């Protein structure tokens, strides 16, 4: 592929650190009170923000458009459309807390409000450090954002920290309000289930987290009823037990597909569950009603290890996944599962992007797997940037969060930046674009956590840089998706 000019001509940023001032010159958002009727290009008052021009970036088929910092670097983003304003807002969470941007001008997000980590502190916390809200989930109908608190946040540890979720009302995006912090004995990530009437909170790894069964190696799925956010209720019984060849282990991510199936990824594989409707339960061998708190198994498992220098943990650590409900190549409709296998190790051996077939897993096989008689999905292919154009050779290089548009996977790879992978031929994933930011004078080096297709642009949640706004200049393979799945495709 051909490397293209890095910075869009129209967005020549004057300085490495530019300050964006609000239309009204306000240092603090005054609320939308007046919002859309304001003359501001962003629909209302905006806060100061920092923009870091990546003059050191290496890119192929990608144009850098803008960078925004907000309150910190970020692990995740999400988006909500507001009919009343006629445009979207972008939400990001990271160590600094929550930041909210107007996307009235989608190429140049305008910071409109924030909730800092200091404002999220609970009694007993020793640091102003939110941790960390990967796979951020939102309720676009009720205009709610959920900030998942890991026990390692705010100075805690897996055994001493407080996990749970901050429920934030963003009906007024200029004035987000924490409705409540709800403690949950899980909290590395969380995902809305059943149109956001329930929340599945998962992780982290390790035992010792308060409220856990000591036999568990990691935290499985905890189900919270959030029909009424004033009165959240977390069930005492966990979901997705015995996931790693019969052992209950760390669930890292839950991602809901376009058919409403919730896919729980983590140590021991990826397993899908119906959470609504009446379905055949291949484990209980009967038809029954699925609920968020008593879901019906669908399919799934893990794949054979691909790393010759793997470890017991990382070999089967399926970090997150996307179930493609469509037909791809000569594979059946809904057959393929795209998986991030996270492995934090040398770049040449770091975790990969994998494609697996669900064939042979629809009869509860993944729920009957044992160390003596392990069940494994067929591995179709695996891919990493190692040795590919635009790659680094040192640093942190594992596969991380991705979203899919048509047949193009846009994925964050920590120090390897953002990679665009064409999976039209699932047996042969091919890089068709990249964007990586090495550190340099005045340039914050990149560590891409998650990449989001959104309305023709690509937004990167970067642990160091904040949010980079990019444009993929390559050809979009496959049929473009009407709705991109950011953590949940549920309705």
């Amino acid at each position, binding site marked *: 592929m051909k490397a293209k000019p890095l910075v869009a001509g129209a967005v020549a940023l004057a300085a490495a650190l530019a300050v964006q001032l609000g239309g009204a010159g306000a240092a603090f958002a005054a609320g939308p009170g007046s919002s859309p009727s304001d003359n501001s290009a962003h629909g209302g008052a905006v806060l100061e923000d920092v923009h870091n021009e990546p003059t050191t970036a290496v890119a192929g088929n990608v144009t850098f458009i803008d960078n925004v910092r907000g309150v910190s670097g970020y692990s995740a983003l999400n988006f909500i459309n507001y009919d009343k304003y006629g445009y979207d807002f972008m939400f990001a969470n990271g160590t600094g807390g929550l930041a909210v941007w107007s996307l009235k001008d989608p190429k140049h997000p305008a910071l409109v409000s924030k909730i800092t980590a200091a404002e999220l502190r609970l009694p007993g916390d020793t640091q102003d450090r939110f941790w960390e809200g990967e796979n951020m989930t939102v309720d676009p109908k009720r205009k709610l954002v959920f900030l998942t608190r890991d026990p390692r946040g705010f100075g805690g540890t897996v055994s001493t920290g407080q996990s749970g979720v901050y429920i934030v009302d963003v009906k007024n995006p200029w004035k987000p309000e924490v409705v409540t912090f709800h403690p949950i004995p899980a909290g590395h990530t969380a995902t809305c289930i059943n149109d956001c009437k329930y929340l599945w909170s998962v992780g982290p790894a390790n035992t010792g987290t308060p409220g856990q069964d000591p036999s568990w190696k990691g935290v499985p799925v905890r189900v919270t009823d959030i029909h009424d956010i004033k009165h959240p209720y*977390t069930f*005492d019984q966990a979901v997705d037990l015995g996931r790693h060849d019969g052992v209950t282990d760390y669930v890292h991510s839950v991602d809901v597909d376009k058919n409403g199936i919730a896919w729980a990824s983590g140590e021991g594989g990826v397993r899908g569950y119906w959470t609504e409707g009446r379905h055949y339960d291949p484990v209980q061998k009967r038809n029954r*009603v699925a609920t968020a708190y008593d879901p019906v198994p669908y399919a799934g498992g893990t794949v054979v290890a691909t790393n010759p220098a793997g470890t017991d943990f990382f070999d089967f650590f399926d970090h997150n996944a996307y179930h493609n409900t469509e037909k791809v190549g000569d594979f059946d409709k809904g057959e393929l599962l795209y998986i991030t296998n996270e492995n934090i190790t040398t770049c040449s051996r770091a975790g990969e992007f994998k494609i697996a077939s669900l064939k042979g897993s629809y009869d509860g096989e993944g729920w009957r797997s044992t160390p003596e008689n392990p069940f494994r999905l067929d591995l179709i292919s695996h891919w990493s940037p190692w040795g590919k154009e635009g790659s680094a050779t040192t640093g942190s290089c594992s596969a991380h969060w991705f979203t899919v548009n048509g047949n193009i996977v846009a994925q964050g790879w920590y120090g390897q930046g953002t990679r665009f992978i064409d999976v039209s031929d699932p047996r042969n994933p091919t890089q068709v674009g990249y964007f990586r930011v090495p550190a340099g004078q005045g340039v914050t080096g990149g560590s891409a956590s998650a990449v989001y297709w959104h309305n023709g642009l690509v937004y990167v949640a970067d642990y160091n840089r904040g949010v980079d706004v990019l444009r993929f200049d390559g050809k979009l393979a496959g049929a473009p998706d009407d709705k991109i799945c950011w953590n949940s495709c549920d309705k």
Partner: protein
Amino acid sequence: MRRRGAVRSVALGAAALVVSGLLGACSGSDEDESAPKLRGEITFGVLAPLSGDMAERGQDLVDGAQLAAAELNDQGGVLGRQVRVVVEDGGCTAATGEQGATGLAAKKVVGMVGGLCEDAAVAAAKAVAASGTPFLVSSAPADRLIEAGVPSAFPMEATVYQEALAAVHWMGYRSTQQVAVLDDGSAAAQRLSGLVTDRIKADGLPVSRQSTDSPDLAKLAGTVTASKADFVYWTGAAEPGGRLVSALRHAGYTGHFMASSESDSPEFLKAAGGAAEDAFLTTAAGPKLLPTAADWAARFKDRYRRDPGRDAMQAYDALRALAQAVRQAGDTAPSKVVDNIPRLEDFTTFTGVLRFAADHSLTYDNYVIAQVRGGTFTLASKLRTD
């Protein structure tokens, strides 16, 4: 125990009686020479019916508050001052409630606890709204208090809606597939059955709802059994609830049976006979059900030579919560105390963390699941994971 609405109509004599003064003086702990030296006093008010049909429960409430005050003083008081409790008869009507609250306000109380009858509690809350006196309403039903929206009033009972949530969540734990919700046609029972039914529907579970005031429960039992429901929830009165579970078992029903707090009564057990065994109940947590309250109940009995009732437990927790809010505020100014009530730090009642939502309802309610075992109610689940 019949809670919902039952106490509303109880009337009390016209005059509110001032019946108590300094509580610290009657605390046995005052004789302890090692007790910390306290300087000055901090006065809390207790509002309770002290005569008429509810007098026994009212005294229970007062005793619970007195025990809390005594223990607070043993532990160094509040802000280094001795806790003093004054009591007013709030009766059970709006007029007596208002009069009692006004009497407490005149005594310059830092805050109030108590309130048992709904009409009296609502009127009392409104009476002190202007002064902003914090009022932790310990026993009165919560719904009307929340509707009243008094910024300084915080009900420590759950709402009817929260009883519905407790019922639905327990059904979830039992892997329920089809539910029959039955009521006796009374307004209160219909409200609860409606809330439960709507919430079950929202989860996509098949549910039927039926009202009956017929004494012939055998026919109803037959209908339920034929419907293949595997969970029956009864929201009506205790005695017919007992007869219903008996009729269901007689008709061959093998699924779960649960009744609302209306059936937390010996009448239910008597009417059901052996069929009551294993039946569940949604009910407000009381000292008899909660193992966490056992030590406290023993202390109460040691002091008052009787077992505590639920009103005592609620008032005990309410006074401690009020004291905690004052400690956190570091001040007795009403507005500062009120500000701290929704964010008490490291404070738990016998059911768990005490927190209030923006509308002042309990964030985490005190409904628990009881189960009949050996002919008596036992705790099946606190339904709390905090």
